[in-house]
């Protein structure tokens, strides 16, 4: 029963009012893309143990999708941020590296 702070309405939301949406920052591949790119976009997920960027919707609250950076092993939440971005913002990266000096994006 995780909790995340919704970056839109500010509510510290319990998992019961959230809907999980899988990995964040996927790049969409549409018509014209290669089979490999499309397969990677649609199906291949690294399922990391450690720092993970993921999509959540405050489904039973304000209805907004947001993104979260979380450690899948310790359940530590490094931060949540609006979904309207293609990559984690700098303050989230800083929060992660402060807690996980060995971690890097990529």
């Amino acid at each position: 029963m995780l909790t995340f702070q919704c970056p839109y309405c500010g509510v510290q939301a319990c998992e019961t009012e959230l809907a999980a949406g899988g990995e964040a920052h996927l790049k969409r591949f549409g018509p014209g893309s290669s089979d490999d790119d499309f397969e990677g976009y649609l199906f291949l997920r690294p399922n990391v143990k450690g720092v993970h960027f993921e999509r959540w919707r405050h489904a039973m609250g304000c209805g907004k999708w947001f993104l979260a950076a979380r450690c899948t092993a310790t359940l530590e939440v490094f931060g949540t941020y609006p979904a309207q971005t293609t990559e984690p913002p700098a303050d989230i990266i800083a929060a992660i590296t402060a807690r996980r000096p060995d971690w890097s994006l990529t």
Partner: protein
Amino acid sequence: MSIRLATGGRLIDRSRSIGFSFNGKTLTGHPGDTLASALMANGQMIMGRSFKYHRPRGVVASGAEEPNALVNLGTGNRHEPNQRATLTELFEGLTATSQNHWPSLNWDIGEVNALIPQLLPAGFYYKTFIHPRPFWKHVFEPFIRQSAGLGRAPDPEHADPDRYEQLYAHVDLVIAGGGIAGLQAALEAGRAGLRVILCEQGAHWGGRAPVDGVGIDGQPAADWVTSAVQELEKMDNVHLRLRMMVAGVYDHGYVIGYERVADHAPETDAPRHRLWRIRAARVVSATGALERPLSFAGNDKPCVMLASAMRDYVVNWGVAPGARTVIVTNNDDAYRTALALQAAGLAVPCIVDARAKADGPLVQEARARGLRVLTGMAIANVKGLRGVVAVQLCAQDGTGAVLEDVVCDAVAMSGGWSPVVHLWSHCGGKLIWDSKGAFFRPDPDRPPTDQHGQGFVICAGAADGALLAADTMANASRSIRKILHEHGKDASDAAPLTSAMAEAPMMPVWVMPAQAGVKKRAKMWLDFQNDVKVSDVQLAAREGFESVEHAKRYTTLGMATDQGKLSNINGLAILAQALDEDIPRVGTTTFRPPYTPISMGAIAGEGRGAIFQPLRRTSIQDWHEAHGAHFEPVGYWRRPYCFPKQGESHRDAVNREILATRGGLGLLDASTLGKIIVKGPDAARFLDMLYTNLMSSLAPGKCRYGLMCNENGFLMDDGVVARLDDETFLVHTTTGGADRIHAHMEDWLQCEWWDWKVYTANVTEQWAQIAVVGPKARAVLQKLGSDLDLSNAALPFMAWAEGRIGGFDARAFRISFSGELSFEIAVPAAQGRAFWEALLAAGAEFGATPYGTEALHVMRAEKGFIMIGDETDGTVIPQDLGLDWAISKKKTDYLGKRAQERPHMTDPLRWKLVGLETLDGSVLPDGCYALADGVNANGQRNTQGRVTSTYFSPTLGRGIAMGLVLNGPGRMGDVLDFNTTKKTAKGEMRTIKARIVNPVFYDLSGEKQNV
């Protein structure tokens, strides 16, 4: 024989008696008794039978860890199995029966299992599964089914008459355990101003300290406990709950508390159980420790009991399992039991201590009081069938040669103590092995972590491995101060000084005697409830089950309702020995919530019956109910399936509704259809991505049918889109799809195309929508009167208009799901019922007939229209359904387009939609397959298609069906065989022949809907 002592019993009120019944016998006890102590007082030491061998079993513990004394409580609709007699407080009229025996508790035919235990060795289920195969079916399974199962399940025909509720709480601190450690933690946290819930699973504060003669700040522990509770009760920020167990600790400080509010007082007007759903910043686990049994031959016989439990029974309730008790131990603590028994006037013929040397202060005290202490000794065997008549003694460091028989009628055993680390472990806290005390304790460096990456559970007192009373208090104080420090607070006072007699080190003893042979090891019980013995674990190790998790499942060690509270450490120590490994390398099994079982009622809370899942109701629902509609569930709605008249079958009603609609006028409550407004400068562009066909070219005032696919290419929803104005669309979805499709839209708008200017709103429940269907549809609307020109010229098929009809504000959509002339009229939801009744009244002369979902289904199938969920199942693409006309060739992109280009999606061998017509006019079975020649690799008949929708068509007077068939559209006129579940006289599968036809069975040219 167990007895009530003449004196003692600090928890019972001897001045009053209360009556209860056990197995039909009327017995009496005192207020303050548990069912276990009251049964002992009545000489009823045998309280249950073990699971596998049906061995007679007495109570062995005094608390939550009890594996044996499980009973059926209550009768009739309040019957509940597997209740622990040790935790059941006695009340007037309590009714209990014993379980897992036949024909009686004292004489059980299943006991014969124990005489031939080689028939039921470790892993017997798995072994008998294998061979000889018929043996399992005809011999083992019936036998195991008849003898297995603890307790009797409640009657499913009875609803639980009791009330349950759930509460939410948000606090700084939950403290689990109301012993001296928990109380001290609560005092310090409470004084510092933290918001605290202190939970004690039992009915009394103070835990073991009052029984063990602990002194705190110079006064008896019981007095300190009383004053501590009084101080806590005065604190507004501290909430005290007795009879509330912390059942589980979960992610991010989520804690489940299980409060047994009225189990002990069933006549009170209170919910029986309460489930607390708590968010706590920190959890203090002051859950104490549990004593371990010793593994000697016959350790499971009635009147063999944990030493601490026997002390509890004597001191707390003034009952004893026997008058002459032999103590057997590997530590000093058990000497407290010897001293307590002696003080109560009971005989202790000897103390059998496995240690070569015993001279701690408690041992010296025992010797000084004249008790006989035998060191380096062990119990070789316990004599007695349904109790104890003597023990045979031997050297601990030997094979068990009997040196002496000691006559006795009870045995108190102590194999040392294990901290209750469950709550620490529930959410991932790791353990370390403490070789001095021979137990696992919390590893402070690897706690369960919260959302901030900080440890959020801290153990206090005995649960942290500080077993001695003086250490317990200091440890608890240290633990709570760590939490206070996080809040920037410090406790001003020193922790109370606690005094108790010191203890010399214990000595781990896993098998008694150490060199015991196989015959003895097969009589040493580890798991009392599931009948797992030392020999079983050793056999599992020999057979290669080296992982502790595998050995557990193979032997069922620790898998009973007590979840291995007594057996866990002993069992894995035996496994480690058998594998010649260190115990910490073997590790322990995973502790999972709940700590002890909690009731299903508490989990359900008030969410049962009508409020289990609230129903959505259309504004016309009351009319449907009043007119005898037969309902079917559709999403969260209940829609009328049909409206049977008096004495009419559902089938006849459906046929009548269809013929009336096609022949005159039918009315359908279509309010449940999803309605989503999509608005904004980019709305058209957005819908072009969402639908497979082009929506941006739709003119205001027009409607268009569209298909929605997911990114994987599969059809997920369909419906009619109406363009309200340049920037506004009204999207109709399927009844079950409104919320899902709205969420789908928001997902893409918020997460992918967030710079597109589009706003969506789900307005499904804002509108009542009625389909006015049939040749008389226009006539009835014109009769009602309208400022709209409803003629085909002004409002043609697939157009819509807004105006007033019969005095109602309305939108009229010329759309048809039946193939007839049809207007779907939307009015504000509040006016739905009035409009429905106006239509019925005006339509009476045209034979206006309300119809339900089944008539809707049949009529759409007659027209070859697909239904999401019938023709689609998550693997079907629009191209499979002959809907290529609704897939834009011009668009460069839409959701699912790329996926539909994959080779498997363009494979010409995909099954495609056709109509199917049985040669004999009968109705094909739903879901049946078109058979092909030969069999597949599994010997199953090959197939070449399947039926997706099948009905009796009253319009055509025969069965019609739709299905997906290999090369179907290219094989018009071919006849296929379809399977049925029926057999011919010869025992062969009966098949039905059907011809491949056009899926549009009715009005192929579509002229009826276009008038």
